């Protein structure tokens, strides 16, 4: 049935995309929390945070975008979990379709809906005075990194989506992911943090990704940090993809 992989995946993606478009609150909720945090940080804490010569919103936006992805993928786990609970997952598994398509449909839907949320957040940022000197290539790089990060986190989300016992369990995994940007260079420079916290902040994936996106937006050279960022994204992606597929194979055999 592998010959039907593309067609079946497209049909199933159409189905999950309808779930998103028919409950637009999932996209709004996904975008609203990061937007609220952005407002808070720019207009309330912004004056107290030393962002150097860059404007607050320019400084905060990369971290806000990662928070957006963290809250967006919670819905991916939620949708997958709902499929597992109802009989529809078993119906698909007992049909002559390309089985990996069932997961890929959720993954593609996650990429699409997160892209919409990210576009919304960036739109609000522009309204708040975000300005960038990034050219088309730099924008392409930003989009590429954001999508790669979304893809990696989506495959993490697949794991609780397949294994959770309750709806809370299916989305609880995303809280640490939403929280991670706060202990990074996203909102305050890491040099202001006490030793052990700074050591963690400097060496966790969000810092390198945030620094890279910030440099791209500012039209500055990204330096070697871009490779650290890419290595984190690809590393998370490979591990999460492998684990998710092992879990999936165990579920369907």
């Amino acid at each position: 049935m592998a010959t039907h992989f593309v067609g079946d995946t497209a049909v199933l993606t159409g189905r999950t995309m309808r779930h998103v478009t028919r409950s637009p609150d999932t996209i709004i909720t996904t975008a609203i929390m990061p937007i609220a945090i952005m407002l808070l940080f720019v207009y309330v804490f912004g004056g107290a945070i030393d962002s150097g010569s860059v404007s607050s919103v320019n400084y905060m936006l990369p971290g806000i975008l990662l928070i957006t992805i963290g809250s967006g993928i919670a819905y991916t786990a939620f949708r997958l979990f709902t499929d597992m609970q109802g009989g529809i997952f078993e119906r698909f598994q007992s049909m002559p379709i390309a089985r990996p398509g069932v997961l890929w449909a959720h993954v593609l839907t996650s990429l699409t809906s997160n892209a919409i949320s990210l576009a919304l957040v960036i739109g609000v940022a522009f309204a708040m005075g975000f300005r960038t000197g990034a050219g088309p290539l730099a924008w392409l790089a930003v989009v590429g990194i954001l999508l790669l990060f979304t893809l990696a986190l989506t495959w993490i989300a697949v794991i609780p989506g397949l294994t959770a016992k309750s709806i809370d369990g299916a989305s609880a995994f995303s809280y640490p992911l939403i929280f991670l940007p706060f202990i990074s260079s996203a909102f305050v420079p890491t040099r202001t943090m006490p030793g052990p916290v700074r050591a963690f902040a400097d060496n966790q994936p969000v810092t390198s990704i945030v620094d890279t996106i910030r440099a791209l937006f500012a039209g500055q050279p990204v330096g070697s940090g871009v490779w650290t960022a890419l290595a984190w994204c690809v590393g998370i992606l490979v591990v999460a993809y492998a684990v998710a597929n092992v879990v999936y194979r165990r579920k369907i055999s």
Partner: protein
Amino acid sequence: MSYLSATDQAQGPAIQVRGLEKSYKEVHVLRGVDFEVARGSIFALLGSNGAGKTTVVRILSTLLAADAGTSLVNGFDVAARPADVRESISLTGQFAAVDEILTGRENLVLVARLRHLRQPGAVADELLRRFSLTEAGGRRAATYSGGMRRRLDIAMSLIGNPPVIFLDEPTTGLDPEARIEVWQAVRSLAASGTTVLLTTQYLDEAEQLADRIAILHQGRIIVNGTLADLRALLPPAKVEYVEKQPSLEDVFFAVVGGDPGRSDTADTSSTSSTSRTPSTSSKE
């Protein structure tokens, strides 16, 4: 019918099960299950909760691997040729497997597309008509009653006209009217030549629908035969005169308005009869 695309495999029984065993950790659920289901018949697997009925269905529909034994569905070994088995079957699980966010029609179109049929829209409309769901077809499945949801579920199982259909406790949790709607759907299925294996814990359901009944108890089939065979196991009937009280079901239907076959949009009636005439399947 436009949705005929089944891969009809050789002759012989539609389902053959030999020495099927399955354990979950320490619990030995199936301890050597044997049975056969003839093509075009309705076979009821009867048993109390936890008897292993669902396990049998999950193994036959390639969702679960058996520990021992062989099972052929439509002539294909479930372990060796799962893809061919999936081409031959349709599963209606214990919980209605419909997508609640999609409309009834979209659910049908979805399955028709996944079965790679050429005119998914036409297939959907035909099934909506056949299951008296035409008017409800544009509404989200979440708004359906239990009986309508089950009918949609069964309609989704018919797409592609698979020769073998598994119905796992199709009427559990339904009210009496909805139950009878489902029974009619099952009868019309068998009338069109489909083999149906249904599991149930309701004795009257097996009595109403099945050509053969097998009782699964403590991991084995302890009885397998026609209703007449099963009755013959008991001491011969004796004639007694008993005042005929209306059953609660008679009362229920008398009070709620008579016709037990009533559905939401069309009257399919003829519930009291157990005959399987093809006309019941196409009547609007």
